[in-house]
Structures are given as structure tokens and as C-alpha cells.
């Protein structure tokens, strides 16, 4: 009860501070809005572009020529498709799985063994927006081609019926919208802000201002104070995450697995790891100003070098080693994997074990300096 009462008062005292309220709760929402609004439309200004794989028949029949013309019509300059010829379906589908192709078209000759098949097969990846749109456009294009052939040909002809064949693949290389892609970054930035700014600054401030000293003249124990501090941080992060989720769910309609257990579990791992890191900063800082500088430096490095907003694995080795050192590199990738996106060449074992190693190291350093951090001799 004492811990609850104190934790509640402690939380209210902090959340009323403009800096805490703004940076922890308001800024992540503003950032999410601006990033989605500005960067979400990058590359969407012009006409859409799709990668088309074509597996032609070996004949020069009228049907083959009509199909050739249709494909040429949709893949000319200024047209939405860019066509690439493939010799077999396996290699084309493989390219589609690797996100190199959006859709594959196969022409089945009537005389061939596959004569029971429709003249055209359109293979696309179910659930991938670009693939589904490309398949729809191609179906419409072949329907138009049928009309043209019927108009110009007085003879019997085989209708170019197309069959769209959805392909279900593992979500390994799923491409997602920017508003989805950026969500883990914004969520992690908020956790970083609370863990690396609020936490060490709050501990240092109340220690140096003498508030802790006054509290330790009461029956409150240092462990209870620490528990209330953690409660306050957790409450701030959970409120902020709730607001972010509401924005992502209701406004941006983010669907890419942010409600999955893996994603939420990773967020909790991130909270633990980064709060622990912040406590290590507090234990290495004698003064509030030192905690502020250390927190700021670590925050900037973890955000920019952690791959939040741009790929970092192409950086020169002179700096790439830092990328591999940071817990955020692994945490943001882990969150994206939970959304079905792979953006970093790192094995799952490393994605979990590196943040865990930081968590343990930080917790040990903090424990060794616990009394000093609390300002209790």
C-alpha cells in the first residue's frame, strides 16, 4: 500500500512536468504523424511501378502474339509494369518471394500438355498490397485484349481467360507500408526517451536536490523508492504506448502484427533493457548535468545508429562495429521481424541474446552502485 501510494504520487509529480509530458507522451505522437505524413509519401508521387515476370510460350501463334502485345502495352515507357522474361515458374516465384517481382504471368499453349490449364495464369502473393494490385491490373488488361481480338478476328479463338493464382509465402520478406515500418522506431524512441532521459535525470535530480534524503528519514526503504521509480517509468511508457497504438490502429490502420504477442513481448524486452541501461547511466553520473549529457549522447547514438530510420548495415566498418554493439539495433529488428519484415542480416539468437546481455550488464553495474544512486550512505 505504501509503495502504491508513493508510486502514484511520484508519477503525478513527474507527469505534471511539461518536459516529461511533452517528450514522453506528446512528442512520439507528433513524430509518428510527421514521419508518416512526410516520409510515408516518398516514392508515391508518380505513377505506381510493378515488377512483372513473364514466362512465354515457345510458339508464334496468334494467341502468343496477342499476349505479347498486351504485355508490351502495359510495360512500355510510362506504363506501370517493368517486364522480365523467365524460363520457368520456380525461378520467377523465387524472385517474387525475394521481393524482386510483384507478379508473374504464364502463357499456357493450348496444344501443350498443360492444355487443361487456362491460357493465362497470373501468380501473385496474397496479402502483399503491390502484388495484389498488379494482378488486378493485369486481369483487366487481358480482359481488354480479349475484346480487341474478338473485334479484329472473324475466326474462332480461344478466349484469353486468366486465372489469378494467389501464392501464400512465409512473411519473411513481406513489404509493408511506411506507417507500419516506422511504428517500432517511434515506439522504441519513446522508450529510449523515458529510459535514458527521464529515469537518470529524475534519479540524479532528486538525489542532488535532497528530496531523496528527506524521503530516507521516513520509513520508506531505498528498494521501495526504486520500486516506485520503476512503476513511474512503466506507467509513463504504457500510457505513451497506448496513445501510439491508438494512433496506429485507429488513424493509420496499421495491420502488420503490432498487436501480436511477439511484438508486445519485444516491447517489454526493450523496456527492460533500456530502463536498465538508463539506470547504468544514472549510476555512472555523479551530477544531474552528467546524467543529462550521457543520456543525450547514448540516445542519439542508439537512435541514429540503431537503424530506426535508415539501413545501417551498409555503413563502413569504421562505424559499423558500433551498430553491432547497440541494443537498439537488435530490438528494432526484433520488432520488425514480429511484423514480418527482415531488414537486418542478423540471426534470431543474436537478436535476443545481445539485448539480454545489455540488460544483465546494466543491471549488475546499477546494483553495484545502488546506494550511491539512491543518495543513501
Amino acid at each position, binding site marked *: *500500500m*505504501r509503495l502504491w*501510494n*508513493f508510486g502514484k*504520487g*511520484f508519477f*503525478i*509529480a*513527474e507527469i*505534471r*512536468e511539461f518536459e516529461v509530458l511533452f517528450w514522453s507522451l506528446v512528442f512520439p505522437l507528433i513524430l509518428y504523424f510527421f514521419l508518416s505524413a512526410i516520409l510515408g509519401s516518398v516514392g508515391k508521387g508518380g505513377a505506381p511501378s510493378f515488377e512483372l515476370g513473364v514466362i512465354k510460350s515457345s510458339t508464334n501463334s496468334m494467341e502468343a502474339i496477342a499476349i505479347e502485345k498486351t504485355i508490351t502495352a502495359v510495360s512500355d515507357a510510362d506504363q506501370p509494369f517493368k517486364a522480365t522474361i523467365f524460363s520457368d515458374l520456380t525461378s520467377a516465384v523465387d524472385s517474387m518471394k525475394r521481393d524482386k517481382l510483384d507478379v508473374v504471368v504464364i502463357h499456357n499453349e493450348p496444344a501443350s500438355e498443360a492444355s487443361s490449364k487456362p491460357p493465362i495464369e497470373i501468380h501473385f502473393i496474397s496479402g502483399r498490397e503491390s502484388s495484389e494490385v498488379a494482378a488486378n491490373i493485369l486481369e483487366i488488361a487481358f480482359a481488354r485484349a480479349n475484346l480487341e481480338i474478338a473485334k479484329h478476328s472473324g475466326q474462332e479463338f480461344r478466349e484469353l481467360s486468366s486465372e489469378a493464382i494467389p501464392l501464400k509465402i512465409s512473411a519473411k520478406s513481406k513489404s509493408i507500408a511506411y506507417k507500419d515500418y516506422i511504428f517500432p522506431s517511434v515506439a522504441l524512441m519513446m522508450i529510449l526517451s523515458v529510459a535514458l532521459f527521464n529515469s537518470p535525470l529524475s534519479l540524479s535530480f*532528486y538525489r542532488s*536536490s*535532497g*528530496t531523496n*534524503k*528527506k*524521503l*530516507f*528519514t*521516513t*520509513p*520508506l526503504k531505498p528498494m521501495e523508492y526504486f520500486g516506485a521509480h520503476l512503476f513511474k517509468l512503466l506507467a509513463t511508457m504504457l500510457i505513451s504506448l497506448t496513445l501510439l497504438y491508438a494512433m496506429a490502429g485507429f488513424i493509420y490502420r496499421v495491420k502488420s502484427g503490432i498487436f501480436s504477442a511477439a511484438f508486445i513481448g519485444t516491447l517489454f524486452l526493450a523496456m527492460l533493457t533500456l530502463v536498465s541501461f538508463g539506470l547504468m547511466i544514472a549510476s555512472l553520473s555523479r551530477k544531474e548535468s552528467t546524467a543529462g549529457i550521457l543520456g543525450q549522447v547514448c540516445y542519439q547514438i542508439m537512435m541514429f545508429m540503431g537503424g530506426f530510420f535508415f539501413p545501417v548495415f551498409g555503413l563502413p566498418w569504421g562505424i559499423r562495429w558500433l551498430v553491432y554493439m547497440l541494443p537498439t539495433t537488435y530490438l528494432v529488428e526484433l520488432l520488425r521481424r514480429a511484423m514480418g519484415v527482415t531488414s537486418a542480416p542478423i540471426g534470431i539468437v543474436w537478436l535476443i541474446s545481445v539485448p539480454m546481455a545489455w540488460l544483465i550488464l546494466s543491471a549488475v553495474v546499477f546494483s553495484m552502485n545502488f546506494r550511491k544512486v539512491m543518495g*543513501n*550512505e
Partner: protein
Amino acid sequence: MSKIVLKASHLKKYYGSTKAVDDVSFELCEGEVLAILGPNGAGKTTTLEMIEGLRNADSGLIAFFEEGFAPSQVQVKERIGVQLQSSSFFRYLSVRETLQLFGGLYAKQVPVSELISTMSLEEKEKTLVKNLSGGQLQRLALAVALVNDPLLIFLDEPTTGLDPQARRAHWDTVLALKKQDKTIVLTTHYMEEAEYLADRIIIMDHGKIVASGTLEELIASIGGKDYISFRIQGLESLPSALGTFPELKDTGAGLFELSSGDVSSDLARLFEYAALNNLRLDDIRIRRPDLDDVFLHITGRKLRD
């Protein structure tokens, strides 16, 4: 005989080679008001913080109440109230919320409204701590120290930085607590504060207790003589003829001071001498010796230096 509520024996605290507290011992009886007086850096706050459990003594023993509890024990924390030298609370909590928060840390609590009323903070109860004046903050700090209805209250330089009116109001509150038989330890470097509030005074200098006792005992320890101070019109320094008064001192700026065991006889002697030598005495004052004189007598320095 009153019960002993606090016993400090041979407390020592060193910071490197600096002896912040050097072999300090004293006892405190129930209902007593003890003032620890000394200049800045005398070791008053360090002594108090060791007793409050905020600092570890390098050596020595501190025992609370009949049971002999150590400072860190919850039985002590529940029964003491502490006003620190510089009070810092949560800036974004109101006066009422601050008292509720601190009250919630104790098993026994005084109703918040009662504390607010006692400390005359009614008009400020919804004001955030960051918006309080120095005097209001000190009143809040004292209210927080009383939130658990403590048996033993520690006040560390409670009136430093306050204006005379606020200081007087604070003294009245302490006197009211004294009437409720609260045991109080206060540190101060204002001798008037110690003289006005304390039953017993400990004087500290350079980490050591240099004198202790009641005000009367301390004054008696330096002879207990009164002081007659005066000026002589037209004279800035002591005329040699006044050498017949061996306890006369030139305190500078034309002011002379005579230490007197018998004021009426010495005054008569002084007027007679002035008349005989055509000297005109001016600005004549008689004062009782104070703690500053005690401190000066013991250390050779003035307390205010």
C-alpha cells in the same frame, strides 16, 4: 527523572583527513529542547544526519528510546520527524498532496487538514510546491516533519534564510511543540534562536563539543559578568587614565566595554571618574553576556565571524 530518548556516544566522522565530527557525545531527555549551536562547518549537520540515519558514523554509538534502537530501524523512523537544512519536495505536487504523500509513508498520520491549519497554510494548500515562497516552504517542511506526530523532532537550521517575521513565527511553532512535550533537537548558528528556544545548548566548533549546558550554566562558566559599554565624547581611543579599570576594553570605533561583576557600583565609579577628568560619557548601555561571549571566551572567535 525524564526518560532518555536519544544517546549519542563518541561519534566520529572523517572526510579524508578532515574531522567533520570528532568524538561527540550527548544525551537527550524526553520533552527537552536541545540546541546545537556553532558556526558554519562546525559539524552540526553531520552530527544530526548521523543520528537521523542519513550518514554512517565512522565510529561511535547512537541509541534511540529505552529499547536502544539504531537510527536505521523502522521503529525509529516511525517515531521521529525531520526537517532538513534545505528542504526539497516534489515541485509539481501541491501542499496538500505533499502532506498526503509523506503521511502515507507512516503507520501513524496526523490529519492533513489539521497540519495545514497548524502551519497556517490554508490559503496555499492547492498551490504547487514550486510556487511557494521561502517562508511557506519552511512551514511546509515543518508540517512534513510533523506528519507522523513524532515523539522526537530534528530541525536542522530551520530558520536560515527567513525574514525576521517568518523566523519569529517559526519560533512560536517550536514553542507550541515544546508545550506539547515534544522532544526537539535543533541546530542553528543564530545564538538568539538557541537562547529563545532551548532548554539546553551544545556549542560545537571544528567537529567537537566545546561547551554544553543551560544558557545560565554557559554564561556562568565564563564568569557571568555583565557588560557596560559607552563612548567618550571627543575620544576615539582609550585614555591612559582609564587604566584604573582593568576590565575595560576598547572594542573599536570609539566604543569601550567594561566587564562588570557589580553594575551599579562600577557605573558609579565610572561616572565619578568621568566627572573628575572632565570626560563626557555617551551612549551608555548595559547588557547581559550572551552565547557569543561564551563562544568568544572559549574559541577566541566570535560566533558571527
